[in-house]
Each structure stands twice: as C-alpha cells, then as structure tokens.
C-alpha cells in the first residue's frame, strides 16, 4: 500500500468513516511492515488530535476576522499560553454536542496545573509567508510505475493496454483516468530509467520547476508519459461539485464572468515538429469549441503552443519561443467572458506572485466554450506531471515552503 493511501485510510478512520475489512487488513499490514510507517501514522494521528484540542480552544480566524498583516511585523497573540491552556481544560469540561466530561478529582489542582504546564510555553508568531492555497483538481501521478518493454521502447512495442486506465488518484475528479486510444500513456519513475535514447531530451532530470529566485514548484509522485506513435488518448472527467457553483452553468465549467487557472509540467522527447507530431491538453471539444495547449502539430516550430478550437479548426494559434524538447512549467489563466474567452499563458513563471497579464508568454482569444474534463492526446512521447486546476495562480503554482 502506498503511504498516501494509508494516510487517507487513517484520515477516514479518524473522521469516523467505516473501512472495509480489506482496508483494515491492508492498513494493519502497512503499519507493521516498517517502523517508519508506524511513525508516519502516529504523526498523522497526532495532527488530528492536536487540531481537535487547538480548535476546541479557539477557532481559526478567517479573512473576515483576521487583522491585516504588515510585512515584517508580528502580531500580539490573541491568547497567551496560560489562557490557551485554561481554555483547553475548560473546553474538555463543556457540555454540548459531546458527552459531559467526568471530572478528575484525583490530585485535584496539581494534575490541572501539570496539564497547563504541558501546554505552557506556546508562543504565537504570525508570519507573512504567502498563503498556501489548494488546487480544486490535482493529479501528481503518485502511482506505481508501469513496466515498459526493454531495452528501448519503440512505437511498435509501446503498451496498448493498462497504462493510465483506471488510475484514480489526486483530487477533484469525478472518475478515474480513461484510455481510449490505440496505445496508452504510462507512469514512469525517472530515477529508475536505465535505457535512454541518445536523442531523448528528458533523460537529464525528472520534471520540475525552479524559478530564477530559487523557488521550487511543489511536486509529488512520478510522472505520466504519453505514447510513442499513434496514439494515446487519455481523459478524465472533473468533479464539478468540487468547484464553486458560481463557476458552473448548464454547459459545464467556465461560466461567464469567472477566472480559472490551470497548470502542468511537460517535456517532449525532443523538439521536432515534422510529420504532425503532437502532445497536447485539450479542454472543451474539437467539434464545437475549446482550448488546446502543448506540442501542437500545426505549429511549425515544435515549440510550446496554445490555440483555440472552433468546429474542428484551430484558431488564433500562438507559439512560444520555448522548444517542446525543453522542460516547461505552463500556467494558463482563462477568463470566461460573454463571447470569446481570454487565455493567457506563462511559461516557466516566477512562483513569487501572480504574474502580470502584460508579461504573458502567449495571449489569445478563444471561442466561447465550457468544459467538464481534460483530454491528453498524443502521438509523440511527452512527459507530463503536476496537473492542477484552481481558482488562483497560487493554487496552481504552489512553491515548496
């Protein structure tokens, strides 16, 4: 069992959800497998226990109640250590939704004082670190690696079953990945790759992004690799209930007047553009209207490209100067408007703050569209990782703290 899966089961158990017998057995086996597993489990349980005691004493403030943070300043703690401890003890005695506490009389005040000491010494420092926002939909491809034919995979030996079919990790998705092409995309562990084609640009390092100030994009798991040759078609439907209702209309996600951000890491086998080689993300539909970004066959340079889609045709195609054989962190901002949408794409932006529209690598008008999932269409092997869709730049471009 993977660690993330085990921790999710622990979360479910701690949230008082029922686990199946198989899950209980698998979790028990994982705990006993390695002392480090038990330690990680205990850290998780401790977090849960701490959150309970902490939030029983005082709710977390939200934007309506927080004071403004001035850079470099500290804020007086709203609760001193002693008051915090007293509140903790008081809260354990409060009747309400929970059963009334039985008072502990043994050692009376001395035990109470020692409980205060256990929580004593707290100091609250409110930092000005950037807030950590969450993507609404995310997949970091934290799955087991797929076996690929050795020694070097070729189009004729590329897998045509399995691959991403049925993989269901991440958040914000309504269903698992679906493979509907003649070949399948696979999961690769870059650290274990031994056989690299000499021309493969991906061999130097796994996908990641470090900006010019040294900030590192958060990444997890392994990475996805699209098929060599025709073709892999890998899709996944979004869980629209995970998005704010204000972003959805009867046609899907992208109601007029809303903004959505979308990002991923990518690197193609090399930058060659000949023979209509492509690997791209598509949202919306080719037949009606949509948006496409990636290595696009119609772009003569083979560079990272974005284009609108309208009744089967690519419209307003814009190509960057960044070759698709180079690793790229592509961040797209979609502003849904009455009529055509506005798309802005940044390639390898700084992670410090939301980039300016005027500094976008690509800017294009996209035919009015809605969407409810993503499709990755490929006939040229390209690695992809860290797919994020969310309400802000920060949500789709989180940096390591």
């Amino acid at each position, binding site marked *: 069992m993977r660690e993330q899966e085990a921790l999710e089961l622990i979360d479910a158990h701690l949230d008082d959800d029922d686990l199946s017998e198989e899950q209980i057995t698998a979790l028990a086996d994982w705990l006993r497998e390695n002392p480090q597993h*038990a330690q990680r489990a*205990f850290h998780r349980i401790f977090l849960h226990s701490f959150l309970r005691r902490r939030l029983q004493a005082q709710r977390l403030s939200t934007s309506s109640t927080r004071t403004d943070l001035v850079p470099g300043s500290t804020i007086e703690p709203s609760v001193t250590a002693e008051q915090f401890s007293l509140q903790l003890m008081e809260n354990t005695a409060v009747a309400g939704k929970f059963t009334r506490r039985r008072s502990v009389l043994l050692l009376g005040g001395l035990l109470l004082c020692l409980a205060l000491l256990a929580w004593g010494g707290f100091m609250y420092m409110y930092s000005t670190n950037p807030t950590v*926002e969450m993507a609404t939909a995310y997949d970091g491809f934290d799955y087991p690696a797929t076996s690929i034919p050795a020694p070097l995979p070729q189009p004729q030996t590329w897998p045509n079953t399995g691959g991403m079919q049925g993989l269901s990790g991440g958040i914000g998705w309504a269903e698992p990945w679906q493979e509907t092409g003649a070949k399948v995309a696979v999961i690769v562990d870059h650290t274990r790759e031994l056989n690299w084609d000499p021309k493969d640009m991906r061999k130097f390092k796994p996908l990641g992004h470090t900006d010019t100030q040294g900030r590192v994009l958060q990444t997890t798991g392994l990475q996805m690799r699209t098929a060599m040759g025709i073709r892999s078609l890998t899709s996944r439907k979004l*869980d629209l209930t995970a998005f704010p209702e204000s972003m959805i209309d009867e046609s899907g996600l992208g109601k007029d007047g809303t903004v959505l951000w979308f990002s991923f890491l990518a690197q193609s086998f090399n930058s060659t553009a000949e023979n209509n080689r492509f690997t791209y993300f598509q949202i919306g539909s080719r037949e009606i209207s949509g948006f496409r970004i990636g290595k696009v066959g119609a772009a003569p340079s083979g560079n990272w490209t974005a284009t609108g889609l309208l009744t089967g045709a690519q419209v307003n195609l814009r190509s960057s100067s960044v070759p698709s054989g180079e690793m790229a962190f592509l961040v797209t901002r979609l502003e849904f408007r009455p009529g055509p949408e506005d798309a802005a794409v940044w390639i390898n932006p700084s992670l410090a703050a939301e980039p300016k529209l005027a500094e976008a690598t690509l800017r294009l008008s996209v035919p009015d569209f809605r969407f409810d999932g993503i499709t990755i269409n490929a006939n040229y092997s390209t690695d992809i990782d860290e797919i994020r869709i969310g309400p802000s730049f920060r949500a789709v471009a989180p940096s390591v703290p």
Partner: protein
Amino acid sequence: MSFSTDPNPNQSLTVAHSRALLAKNWGNAQTSLLAFITASVPQFSDAEDLLQEVAVEVAVRFDDYDPSRPFLPWALWIAKIKIAEFYRNRQRRQVVLVGNSLDALAEACVEIQESLSDEQFAIEKCLDQLTDRSRELLNLRYSEGISSPEIGARLGISVRYVRVALSRIRTTLTECVQAAMTSRSSSNA
C-alpha cells in the same frame, strides 16, 4: 513489557515527591497519550473520556511504577488496557487499530515523543498559511465537530470532496511541518 518486581518501587519517595513526579510525568506524556488513544477511539468525546480514565488508573497504580524506567511506555500499557475495556463495554461498530497495529503505534509514540513539542509549534505556524476555505473546513470538522456528510450539506459540496479536501489539508500541513522541522534541524546543526 516488564516492570520492577519491587512491590513498592516508589516507597522511598515521600508522598509529596511521588505526587510531583506523577504530575511532571503526566504533563509530559498527556499529549502523546491522547493521540495514541485517538488512534483507536476516533470519537473525540470517547477519547477524552478514556484519557480521564487512564489518568485515574495511572494515579491509582503509580506506586507500581518504577521511576528508573521511562514513564510513557508504562502509561501506554495502561492506555491499551483501558482501550480494550472500552471495546468490551461499548457497542463499537468497528475496531480498526488493535493488537499488533496498536503495539506498532505505541512504539512509534515512544520513539517520536521528544519531537512532538516542536511539532506543535510547527503545526501552529503552518495553520496560519492555510486559505480561508481550508480554515473553514477545519473549523467545521474540529471546532464544531460535525461529520463529513454534515459539512457537505452545509457547504453544498459532495461528501467525497469534503473527505478528500480534509485529507489534502492534513497532507499539506504534514508537509509544511516536515519542512519546518527539517529547517529547524538544519539551523541547529
């Protein structure tokens, strides 16, 4: 787990010293004990009740404790007894962490006890970095103590999303805490 064969290993301590030792040890161990109990008894109210019972039992049996040995493993042993009694006396729907799993967690609890104090500070700092939405979810879950289906009903989102979102928030906090603890270790090196 073996304990001193001396029927009264604390006999040499005065009553006042014994109480002070108990209070000090309990203060150091209480947080870890509550987390350990929560692993088996996830309902907070039950876990807190059980902690009180363990406190009473520890106090009653304290004359049996050998002060030359670490306190937490002994207290965990008592906690395991109380957890077993809890399951015998209550109609529990499901027993998830029991037997060898619980033993593994008890060992982990002892191993990492020293770092839990720092971990609490790190969690507090990391909480401040969460978005309003994440904080709202945590308030609903832990401050108001309502279930995932109730949270979903209140916010108009699916239960599945609530569960996944809470799990994701905890993972984000865990990663933030790990980074903070690593940074702290590096700066202390």
